[in-house]
């Protein structure tokens, strides 16, 4: 337990009878960039608030650097947090904002020169040195974000917490900031919990993703794992764009399943014949014009142009329609027949409870 940067042990949080977080178990290693991913209201922000001390857990224990912090005041927790709305102090200059964490404790207050030096270092890292004399009002969204980061960096905390830090930025800026955050994390090597509902942020930045829904952990793993082997229907549906196709099916015995009139070979064992299942097919896994594999034939009834490729909707006479990504786009394909094939390993099987088989 002592070598974890953050450790959650059976942490629950409820308001009255409403459980926001249920039995949350997680260990974050030093240097790890952990992303908590989930839709809004899934409890991910509450977890951050419990680590920072804004909220107290209803039960369970939270450890930071091997020390139980359930009853520790926020100021003594050695964690720094970057808020969604930056929470810059509007009445303080950028310099004063960044310097603030250094000056709150009389006992450990650095000298003027040292404060100046540390603020400049932190400002340098996030490239905001030229703005030190300005006030938050005068800064752009991206600059404010950098100031918030510098303020977190300057203290050299054990742990960084980030609560949707990029969600208030426009799309282009978000791309750049994402890359800079990754670089920053590499440079500082501090354990970080990053909360987001944006799967792109999660996939690109995380060393590990924890997917949450309705207060419970759905899956924990590397970005590749959660994408390639989603643990259940929720994760499968939440991660990946366009969204995975879900088709009701049943086992045809052994490694084959029956979807409508089509029989598909699978890598996983589908269990005894007749067992009800849901199969998941990623639109991006379908291959046109290939003889081998599990072929599904149908009529193209819709085609949405998205730029480099198109999302086509295929009616194959099954229980529901199938959406497939196709490179290139031709309007006149609508109404024509097409055949798509899926590799057996790309057919995800989920049992009646939605768990992966």
């Amino acid at each position, binding site marked *: 337990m002592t070598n974890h940067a953050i450790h959650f*042990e*059976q942490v629950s949080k409820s308001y009255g009878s409403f459980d926001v977080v249920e039995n949350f178990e997680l260990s974050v290693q030093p240097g790890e960039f952990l992303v908590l991913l989930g839709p809004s209201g899934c409890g991910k922000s509450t977890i951050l608030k419990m680590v920072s001390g804004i909220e*107290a857990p209803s039960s369970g*224990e939270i450890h930071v650097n091997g020390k*139980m912090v*359930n*009853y520790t005041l926020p100021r003594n927790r050695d964690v720094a947090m970057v808020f969604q709305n930056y929470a810059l102090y509007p009445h303080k200059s950028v310099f004063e904002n960044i310097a603030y964490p250094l000056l709150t404790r009389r006992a450990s207050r650095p000298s003027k020169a040292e404060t100046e030096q540390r603020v400049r270092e932190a400002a340098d890292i996030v490239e905001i040195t030229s703005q030190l004399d300005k006030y938050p009002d005068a800064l752009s969204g991206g600059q404010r974000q950098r100031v918030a980061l510098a303020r977190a960096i300057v203290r050299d905390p054990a742990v960084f917490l980030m609560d949707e830090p990029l969600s208030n930025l426009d799309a282009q800026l978000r791309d750049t900031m994402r890359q800079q955050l990754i670089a920053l994390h590499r440079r500082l090597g501090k354990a970080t919990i990053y909360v987001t509902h944006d799967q792109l942020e999660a996939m690109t930045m995380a060393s590990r993703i924890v997917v949450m829904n309705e207060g419970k952990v759905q899956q924990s793993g590397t970005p590749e794992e959660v994408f390639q082997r989603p643990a259940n229907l929720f994760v499968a549906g939440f991660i990946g764009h366009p969204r995975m196709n879900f088709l009701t099916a049943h086992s045809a015995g052994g490694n084959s399943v029956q979807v409508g009139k089509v029989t598909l070979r699978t890598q996983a064992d589908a269990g005894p014949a007749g067992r009800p299942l849901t199969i998941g097919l990623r639109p991006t896994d379908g291959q046109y014009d290939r003889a081998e594999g599990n072929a599904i034939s149908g009529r193209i009834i819709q085609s949405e142009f998205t730029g480099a490729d198109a999302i086509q909707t295929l009616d194959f006479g099954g229980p529901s329609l199938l959406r497939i990504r196709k490179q290139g786009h031709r309007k006149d394909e609508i109404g024509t027949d097409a055949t798509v094939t899926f590799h057996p390993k790309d057919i995800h099987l989920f049992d009646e409870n939605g768990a992966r088989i």
Partner: protein
Amino acid sequence: MLSTTEHRKLRLKARIRQNLTAYAFLAPALIFFVLFLAWPVVALLIQSFQTGGIMSPAKYVGLENWRQTFTDPLVVKSIRNTVVYSLMAIPAVFIIAMILALSLNTVRFGQNTFKTIIYYPTLQPILLAALMFTFVLHQDFGILNIILRAITGEPVNFLGNRNLALPTIAMVEVWKGAGFWTLLFLAGIQSLPRDLYHAAELDGAGPGRRFFQLTLPLLKPTFFFSFIFATIVNLQIFDSVFVLTDGGPVNATVTTTWYIYRSLFTFNEPGYGATLSFVLVILVLALTAVQTILFRERR
């Protein structure tokens, strides 16, 4: 993981620490609150069963003060005067303030100058306003009487007339208070959603209908606070009575607070004053409660 009992202990400690912090912030305010507001209310009740206390030690007299209160015609009169005064002053000042606020909202130039001038009397203590009003009302040199004399040839003895004295004192409050309520109503009007008015205008609603069907209903919360605030303040009317009529003529302007003051100092009967005070507290609280309930129901 620690045991449940250990957690409970630690949690209790954290709670205590949290409460100590909060109460450290609250302590000065709470001390003054208890000493000079909560305790005096309790003391009122205790003193209402006592007599004496200023020159000699207080003695318990049971329900004597209360019995006297219910049979004293001047008590009835003082409460009646206080309520009648409020019923004259508050509606008058509100209607005038509303007219002024609407006017201010209509004009384009000089709005700030008018605002400043109209607000100016509000700055003065009510006592000073009343004192200045002697220069308005005086039979010989009061400016209002100079005007009346020029028109009718006869001055009016505003404060010496039993029927005019109380309305005249209400007039002081209107003069002094109008600016305050004008600004408050103006702020209310200017914070109303513009779109609604444009929509109403498109629907063909004229200025009159827009005022009665939009402005007044939308300002209800403002009116609610204003009425309660004005009620609490006006039911305590004392300063202008003290300086203008001292209760006269023939007790026509005796108000509850005036009677309380006289009981304490002129009649040396603090017990009786406390009893009257308690009645006043109940009166104000009851009227405030009634207003709150009426407002809630209509909403």
